[in-house]
């Protein structure tokens, strides 16, 4: 997928973009709908996310993160800005005009693929109650307090589940950092 993004960045490859669009567009729409928004708004936000991908592809440094991670960050910021009408304070990851995507070292791209696989494996191995708080945070956009209310558990429990989940994910990446 990072490769598709590189093709878009380097030669405005519309076929590559089409594939990105059809892979991530429907998922970004689903992501927006998880926030409780209607389908039409979610569609608009998905379009806008992918539009941003097209426009900013050349700013993306493929050696530093996967396409999915970058698209997630764009969608996350849009969600905060449009659905929550708050300021998205988070920067987009690894937008580095000085290091074009084409300069990505093959080793690094490979290592990034491996990192992503480790994260996936770590997430899959989490016990349900830890996986749940991670999903509620990332996909439903709930704060610690809102997760505590939703699950009817103390705030401290939410935080400690999240910390443990994080430690496991981090441990999975230890030798690749």
């Amino acid at each position, binding site marked *: 997928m990072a490769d598709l993004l590189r093709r878009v960045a380097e030669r405005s490859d519309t076929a590559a973009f089409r594939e990105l669009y059809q892979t991530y567009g429907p998922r970004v729409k689903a992501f927006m709908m998880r926030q409780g928004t209607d389908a039409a708004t*979610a569609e608009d936000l998905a379009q806008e996310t992918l539009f941003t991908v097209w426009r900013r592809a050349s700013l993306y440094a493929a050696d530093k993160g996967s396409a999915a991670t970058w698209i997630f960050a764009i969608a996350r910021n849009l969600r905060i800005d449009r659905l929550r009408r708050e300021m998205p*304070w988070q920067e987009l990851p690894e937008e580095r005009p000085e290091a074009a995507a084409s300069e990505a070292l093959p080793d690094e791209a490979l290592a990034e693929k491996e990192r992503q696989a480790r994260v996936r494996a770590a997430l899959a191995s989490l016990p349900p109650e830890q996986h749940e708080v991670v999903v509620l945070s990332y996909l439903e956009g709930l704060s610690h307090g809102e997760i505590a209310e939703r699950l009817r558990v103390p705030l401290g429990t939410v935080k400690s589940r999240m910390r443990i989940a994080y430690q496991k994910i981090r441990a999975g990446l230890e030798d690749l950092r």
Partner: protein
Amino acid sequence: MTITHHLDDATLMSFAAGSLPAALSAVAAAHVAMCTRCRREVAGLERVGGTLLAELPPATLDRAEPPASAIWGQDPRPDVHENPRRAGEGADPIPAIAGAPRGAPPAPLARLLPRELDNVRWRRLGLGVWHHRLAVAGRGGLGLLKVAPGRVVPEHGHAGAELTLVLRGSFHDATGRYLPGDVADLDETIEHKPIADPGRECICLVASERPSRFRGLLARLLQPLHGL
């Protein structure tokens, strides 16, 4: 200068997820901009978001094909020039923060902060404490807090979560000493009573999950005296 007090892991995860209440998120972003360690952590945590996004069952797009390239613009590349600079870059640096270990705060926050910490219009709260509210949309309260040397840094949350980022001067409590760039992200179960270090006033960027209620501040500051 080294940053020794970082964001809690649960705060970092919620920040990367985009789920931290707005005011807390602003302080977290300012710390992350200054802190290499936390920046690396956030990058790792964004991968979690990417993975979860990639695994989401897809919804159906009404527009199954991307709009014609004419609509999208022919070439994404010129955007490099017109596109916003990397956040923080090129923005007028905040003197107090520019002197800190790393970079300026993210651009949106830099616009919100006063240019000079010496020219802030402070509201006096008494007992060597001043406050300056920053308007921020969304959940929580955000502001600057100035504490005279040797004075107690008041609580700014009201039972909810709070973050305190030192911009100038320093304070200490049972958990250690906090210098510029350090952030106090303490569990509400920890009882702490930060005191500004002698010699220089301490200025912090503070956020609370619920809007600050400084009305009760004097009473709370005086509480230890009543207890005597």
